[in-house]
């Protein structure tokens, strides 16, 4: 039976039988993979702890007809372990993992989505930026990679140079006065600035934003994502929005992927 090796992020798990699990993973080379991990629910399992959601592992599997089988998993970065000790980070990570699951197809390589998710989890585990900003930035960039890139400066309808005052989900972001349709909202200009910063990864600008702009941006990002996915992301409803307190010495958990 053909075997393969790949680097994978565990996205979610389902119980199977008495002691097994079906593990859904986003791999760097093969896109989304679903594989059976045998005996991982036993307390003496050799790699059960490595196949928890949020863990980055080097994986060895053999191919099956519908499901592959995990034969080996070596830890690369235990982001899931760090994240589980911080409840707001856990809820944000779960929303990221569910989004990654929804935006990827089985056996279709999605290297950019893989790198983005690994970076997002590292940022949550290392507390490098406020949790709510990391989540919103991830969601905006993930939908952009999937082909639905929003615009927050120029008009999404005609391309007229911005900034503009209206926002329309269906149009794809900011819209000018003439492209504005009924149902468009009028967010605060600072919210537009924050959204543009989150999309481009300008953390300095994003972290200068106030609470009101963050809340409004949060709602718009969630609405934009769910508009394009056509179904709700269940985890988003349960995201715990924290009052961010910067850690004096961020724990060094960011690991360079091989």
């Amino acid at each position: 039976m053909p075997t393969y090796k790949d680097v994978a992020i565990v996205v979610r798990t389902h119980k199977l039988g008495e002691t097994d699990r079906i593990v859904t993973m986003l791999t760097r080379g093969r896109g989304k993979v679903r594989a059976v991990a045998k005996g991982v629910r036993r307390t003496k399992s050799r790699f059960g702890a490595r196949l928890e959601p949020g863990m980055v592992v080097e994986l060895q599997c053999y191919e099956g007809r519908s499901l592959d089988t995990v034969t080996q998993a070596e830890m690369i970065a235990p982001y899931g372990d760090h994240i589980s000790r911080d409840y707001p980070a856990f809820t944000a990570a779960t929303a990221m993992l569910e989004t990654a699951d929804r935006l990827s197809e089985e056996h279709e390589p999605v290297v950019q989505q893989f790198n983005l998710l690994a970076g997002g989890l590292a940022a949550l585990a290392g507390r490098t930026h406020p949790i709510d900003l990391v989540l919103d930035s991830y969601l905006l960039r993930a939908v952009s990679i999937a082909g639905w890139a929003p615009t927050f400066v120029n008009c999404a309808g005609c391309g007229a140079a911005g900034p503009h005052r209206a926002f329309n989900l269906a149009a794809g972001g900011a819209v000018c006065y003439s492209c504005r349709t009924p149902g468009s909202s009028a967010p605060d200009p600072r919210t537009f600035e924050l959204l543009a910063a989150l999309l481009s990864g300008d953390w300095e600008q994003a972290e200068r934003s106030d609470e009101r702009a963050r809340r409004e941006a949060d709602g718009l990002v969630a609405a934009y994502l769910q508009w394009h996915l056509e179904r709700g992301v269940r985890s988003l409803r349960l995201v715990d929005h924290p009052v961010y307190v910067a850690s004096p010495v961020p724990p060094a958990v960011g690991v360079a992927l091989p």
Partner: protein
Amino acid sequence: MYEGVVQDLIDELGRLPGVGPKSAQRIAFHLLQADRADVQRLSEVLAVVKDKVRFCDLCFNVSEDTLCRICGDSRRSVSLICVVEEPKDIMAMERTREFRGRYHVLGGAISPIDGIGPDDLRITELMRRLGAEPIEEVIIATNPNLNGEATATYLSRLLSPLGMPVSRLASGLPVGGDLEYADEVTLGRAFEGRRLIGG
């Protein structure tokens, strides 16, 4: 496809957790070949279990009375409460014969990806118990996986401001195992939870 009631039996058995179509077929034919008295006894137990068994009013363990055997036992400590995910976890804890307090069954763990949040668990009932009973320590014994750890983190965040001592079951090396085969997460936890044995 079998005819009529045989297929109905296979379909019903196939709806049970962990029972696939082949297993359902095997169990169905076993029942068909078994003594009438054995099958009768099974059907009676199934009917009685649905009629009689309920959840304990206090801890939500399965019980035949308003209070389960553990909550009704006056010899058990009322100052210790062990929080578990499912009633079957209580059986695992009881096998240790180490814990003499009482339990609280949450009914699962927080799992946002499955749409299960804190409001879907019996956390309000736990808070009510903390107000009504002389509890001095809460031991969180949720599963040592991502959702179980996050549930423990959530409970700790909720209970600590109340001045309630909250502890978590230790994670670490399984007894009888070899150190060289331990994964780094488990071994890391074992280091964190190490204890002094001398000096």
